[in-house]
Every structure is written in structure tokens, then in C-alpha cells.
């Protein structure tokens, strides 16, 4: 496979053709923040946290959907990018009802970690506090749209890994919501296989196993790439 040479944050690095910028950057030990990206799933480019500056391009590019090219000069942590990332996390915190102190995933939440990482101790934007009903109709799992960041990791996991496509998005803009089948209660879904992979891929506490209390959700998003790798070795 042909090798490419890029400059990332002033360092010359090499990569294989076909890799995305995010893969190259992470492969070189730089911890670029992401939220909607999950290894193994198709990249979505929706959270805009992995934005990087590429010399010669007018606007920052989302690293997860930008293919690495020969001779690219990439900056991952400029002051401007840090400011944008902080703003995006603040917008997410204000969008739904993120109350960490009572959340099942408190302490393990990706959104919470990002907020801590960027030193967000207060949110400058108005809280929208939408009233979103919780779906507890499934025997094992629950869904609280109030904690959802609309990253669609669960949607892609259900479609690409499990192949059930029970989950999808409905609505538009800020009124978007994760929908089960054609907006059915989860417990009545005929397509859901109760595999629970969506719960594992969820970065926040929006999807959770029932009977878990504050801070008790055990997250294992690395399960998804592990399943895919396992499949690949066994299919050969």
C-alpha cells in the first residue's frame, strides 16, 4: 500500500493511503476529541469536534471524514479550534437536559469528560430544557432522549453491526430524536433483537440498562470494533 507523508502539528508523519486524517492523527498519539466517531462504524462528521486546520483550505475540516493526502499540513490544536470545540460542547450541554449528578453514566460519560477536558465550569448559552418523555417500555433497556447528543452512534451500530436497523432518526433540527421503528415504544418493537450494542455504543446516558442507578452504567464502546474484528478473522 502506498505510503503518504504529512505534517501534523509540525511533525512529519507517514500514513497509508485510504486512511482518514483522524486515523493518522490518533495513530500518532494525538488525542483529538470526538463524540460521534466510533471506531468500526461509518464516520458521520456530525459533532464537528475533530475539526482540524489544513493549510490551503479556507475552513477547518472534520478529520473523521477527510482522507489523508500527500503533503497535507495539519494543525490540530490552534486557539481558534479550541474555542470552537468549547463552544460546541457548551451548545450540546445547553441543548438537552444533562444533569450529571443524577445520571446513570456519571463519571464515565464522554460528554462530561469533554466538558472537563475543556474546563467548562459554566455554560454561557440558555438552557433549552426540552420536555422529552423517557421510554422505559423495553424489558432490559431504557432510553432518555433528554441525555441524547444525537451522535447517531446507536443508529449506525444497530444498522451496520447488528443489521436490525431498529433505531433511526426522526424530526428535524433541534427537534430531531432517536426513533424506534416507526416511532413505537421500544418494548413493542418487532425488529429489536435486544442485543444491547446500542447501549454500549452510546457516549452518554441516553441509552442505559434498566436497574442501574446513578453512575452505575458500565460502558464498553470498544466492544463494537472488537466484534467487527472478531467477525473479520472468523470470516476469513
Amino acid at each position, binding site marked *: 500500500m502506498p505510503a503518504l507523508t504529512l505534517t501534523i502539528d509540525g511533525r512529519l508523519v507517514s500514513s497509508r493511503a485510504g486512511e482518514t486524517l483522524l486515523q493518522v492523527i490518533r495513530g500518532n498519539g494525538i488525542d483529538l476529541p470526538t463524540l460521534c466517531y466510533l471506531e468500526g462504524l461509518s464516520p458521520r462528521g456530525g*459533532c464537528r469536534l475533530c475539526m482540524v486546520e489544513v493549510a490551503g483550505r479556507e475552513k477547518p475540516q472534520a478529520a473523521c471524514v477527510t482522507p489523508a493526502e500527500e503533503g497535507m499540513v495539519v494543525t490540530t490544536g490552534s486557539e481558534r479550534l479550541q474555542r470552537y470545540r468549547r463552544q460546541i460542547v457548551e451548545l450540546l450541554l445547553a441543548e438537552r437536559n444533562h444533569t450529571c449528578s443524577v445520571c446513570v453514566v456519571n463519571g464515565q460519560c464522554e460528554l462530561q469528560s469533554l466538558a472537563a477536558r475543556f474546563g467548562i465550569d459554566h455554560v*454561557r448559552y440558555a438552557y433549552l430544557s426540552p420536555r422529552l418523555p423517557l421510554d422505559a417500555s423495553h424489558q432490559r433497556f431504557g432510553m432518555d432522549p433528554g441525555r441524547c447528543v444525537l451522535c447517531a452512534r446507536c443508529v449506525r451500530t444497530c444498522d451496520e453491526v447488528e443489521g436490525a436497523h431498529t433505531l433511526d432518526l426522526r424530526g428535524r433540527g433541534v427537534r430531531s430524536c432517536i426513533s424506534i421503528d416507526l416511532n413505537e415504544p421500544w418494548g413493542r418493537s418487532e425488529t429489536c433483537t435486544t442485543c444491547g450494542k446500542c447501549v454500549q455504543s452510546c457516549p452518554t446516558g441516553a441509552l442505559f440498562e434498566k436497574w442501574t442507578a446513578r453512575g452505575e452504567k458500565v460502558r464498553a464502546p470498544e466492544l463494537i470494533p472488537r466484534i467487527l474484528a472478531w467477525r473479520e478473522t472468523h470470516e476469513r
Partner: protein
Amino acid sequence: MNASDLEKLALHEAGRERRYCLRISICMGSPCMAAGAAAVKTAIEELIDRHGAAADIRVVGTGCVGPCSRGPILLVVTRDGTEYRYERVTPPAAAALVDRFLNGDVAPTERLLPADLPFFTGQTRLVLANCGYTDPERIEDYIARGGYQSLSRAIHHLSPEAVCEEVTRSGLRGRGGAGYPTGVKWELVRKASGSRKYVVANGDEGDPGAYMDRTIMEADPHRVLEGMALAGFAVGAEQGYIYVRGEYPLAAARLRQAIQTAERLQLLGGRILESRVNFRIDLRMGAGAFVCGEETALLASVMGRRGHPVTRPPYPAQRGLRGCPTLINNVETFATIPTIIRYGWEEFASVGGPGNSGTKVFAICGDLVNAGLVEVPLGTTLRQIVEEIGGGVTGGAFKAAQTGGPSGGCIPAGHLDTPMDYEQLKALGSIMGSGGLIVMNDQRCMVDVARFFIGFCQDESCGKCVPCRAGTVQMGLLLDRICSGLASACDLEQLEELCHLLQETSLCGLGSAAPNPVLSTLRHFRDEYEAHVMDHCCPAAVCNMAATEAACQP
């Protein structure tokens, strides 16, 4: 049908047209229909039946004549070719009018629009040439005026390369808004590797106040189809899709009917005009999402997926519909193509200015005497459009004009002499856009205008990327605060910060252009924002400041 049959049909139809001693056109575009054009047409037909003159007089329901605010419009063409346009026609008035013409009296002057009205004389109609003359539901009318001749010529006498070359040299730029050179795009798709390619027409026009594409599809559907077929021939595609906004049922019905009749005459479908060229066109209806006007979202929607944009590159020209190279152009762009192929690129390039050749259709509305649809050469100044063609501003002095809808910006009075072309508009912080032009008088509050457009973007954001989904909502809330007089200087700062975030980090054009109305009003009317924030008053007295007074009560 072959090429000579087509010419024979054209001659036959033109001959038939000449035999009529009177042609009466009633504008059957959506605005005139809403004003009661259908009843007018029935009244005229009944009258002619009573006179038993149906053989000598042709009554035709046509596409948009132009001055929509004065509808229904009646156009009478006498045998010597003199045209009389009547405005605001009611069924009894129409019957009385036609009766006078039938009796051979001098043309009535009541409701008559003067022939030298700048609204008509100031225009150059290339794309809208057939509007007001042909019946959109009769393919013979289009053929009689030279329709499908360009396609016939291209298929039989030109190579695909030559067609691309012609379009490139004409200097035509995409009429959907961004102004990308059309020929370059065609060449990219033509050279792209792949056995299957597609042509897609974007008719998902959604800007508030803009209806150019709707009018073109309603008034002259065959022109769009011919343009698409030419594109299919030039890039090597055998399948086309025309994506029509869900709110345009009349346009969809006429296009569907046009596709059927064209296929019956072998002008579309398999073996066009007995050649080896095949090109089918299918209609796709949108479901009411503004974002589907963005090309990648549109392609997703055509494929039956959720209308979400994806990051470019790869561009549709490389990988579009079903992973194949796809040419996607606006409806108006396609409608321009037959003219270019028919008259040659020199003729087309002689209209407009260098780098901005040809004409552009604008939907002019707002505080104007003559609101409606106009087609002018690119580079016409805003002053000409507003003061001459539009007949001047009503209800006060000119304050600003919004171009490009919610993705564009405003042009203040000081820049009235700006030529309307892609570069000049961009330099002013606005865009050409698809051609919506909203004129505002000095009774309008620019902060309120910005708030309206942000509200629109907020409703129409698809929700895929965070900056656009949550950012537009926060911008809306900040503008609400400013408009109610409760905002502080800090809020204004935050608003600007959000504008930059959206511009730089949004996934698609909808999000990155959403702050344009705010940024351009901030640039040209910053004093108004400051009056709202510092003095808690609205200079135009539009915004309700009651909340401020309540807050100040002890």
C-alpha cells in the same frame, strides 16, 4: 419521430398559429391562479363559444407573464402582432374586454398596462422567452417556437465534447446560487470513469419569497427537459431525475405530463429522434425539507434516504447517486442550455458582463410597486431592478434589499448602484443565491429581518451537525432578546461569536450560510443593533419593547 418530422411539426404548428386572428393568453402561473385566473379563462371561453368564433381565436392558459402582484394578467395578441397586457382582470371584465376585441373596436384602455412599461422593456427574456405565449401542457406549442431543435442538432450534428465545449465557452455559471462554471462541471462528469452516470435537476427551491424555478417548471417544462436531455447526451448519462419541491404540485403535474408527451413523441426515452441516444427522466418529489436543496442531501433524498448532507469531497461529479458520477444543476441552469446550443455561445456570452454572461431570473418582492418575476442580464444594477423594473419602493424610502434568501445578505441604499453579479454581491457580504430579491422600505427593522431568517434556518436545519442544529437556536434566542430590548452588549458579542462558529464549522452550506443575514445586517446596520441593545429602542418602531419597560418598573 425523427429530425425532419420534428421540423415539419414545427412548421405545421407555426402555420396554424398564424391563422388565428386573435390570441388570448391568460397567465396560469400559481400567483395568477390564486387570484382567480381559472375563472377568467372559463368566462372568456364561454363568450367565444357564444360568438361561435372558436376557430379564429386561440385562448391559451400560459406560464407566468411577470407582474404577479397585478394578476390575473391577460395578454391579447392581435393578428398584426400588437400585444396588449391587462392587469387585475376579473371574469366579467375579461368578457367585456374580449367582446370589444371581437367587435373590432379599438383596444380598450381600461386595466391596460402601457406597452412601454419599464417592467417589460427593461427585461431580456431568454429563459422565460415562452412565458405568456405557450401552453405548458401542449408540447406542440414548445416545438412551434423552436423547442427540441437544440437537442436534435446536438444529437445529429454535434459530439458530446462539442456540447460541453459550447457550454464552457458560453461562460454559463450555476444558477442555483454558488455560481460554479457549468461547463467545467459537465466536463468533470463527462471525463469521470464509470459506465453509469446520472443527471439530476435541482427543483427544490425553498428560499422565502423566491419562485423562479417553480415558474420555469410550471410555464415551460419542456425547456427544462430539453436542457437535461442535452446534459445527458453531453456527459454520457441515460437516466435523469428531476427533484421537485413537495409544495409545488402544479409544477410536478405539468412536468409529469411533459415527460409523458415527450416520450410519446420519442423526444425522450429510448432512441431519441431515431438516434442511438437514450435518455429517460423520472420525477422525484421532495417532502418539505429545505435542506434537500443542498446537493448531497438532495441525492440522498432521491435515493429514498433521509435528506442529510454529507461532507464533500467526494463531489457528486465524482461519486453521487448510487455511487456513480452525477451531474447536478439547478432547474434554471438546465433551462438556459437549449438557448445556448440553439444560438451559439457567442450570442449568449454577448449578454451580461465578462465572467457573468447571460441573464438571471429574479423574483422581486417586498415593498415594491411591481412585484413579480423578471429576467435581466447579469450585471444590471440593483437600482435599475428596484426603481425602473420594480417601479419604485412603496410605503417609504428604500432601505435595503435581501438577496439570496436566508443564505444571503442585505444590500443597503448606499450600494444601490452595485451591478448584480456573483462577485460584486459576494464582496458586499451577500450572495446571488437562486434569485430571490426582497426589497424593504425604511419602516422595516433590520434586526427583526435577521431574526426572521435565523428562525427559518432554525426550523429547516436538518439536525446532523451540532453548530447548525443547536447554534441557530441559540442565535434565535439571542435575537429574541435583542428585539425585546433585554439584551446586553455581552449578548451581541456572543451572537457574533456564534456566527463565526457556524460559518466555519458547519457541515453543509445551509449551516455555514445561516449567519449571513445576521452578519450582513451587523455590517451595514450596526447602529440599529446598538440602538436595540444600548438604548432599548427600535428605530423603526417594529420591535415590541414592552418587556424592557416592565423590567424597569420599580
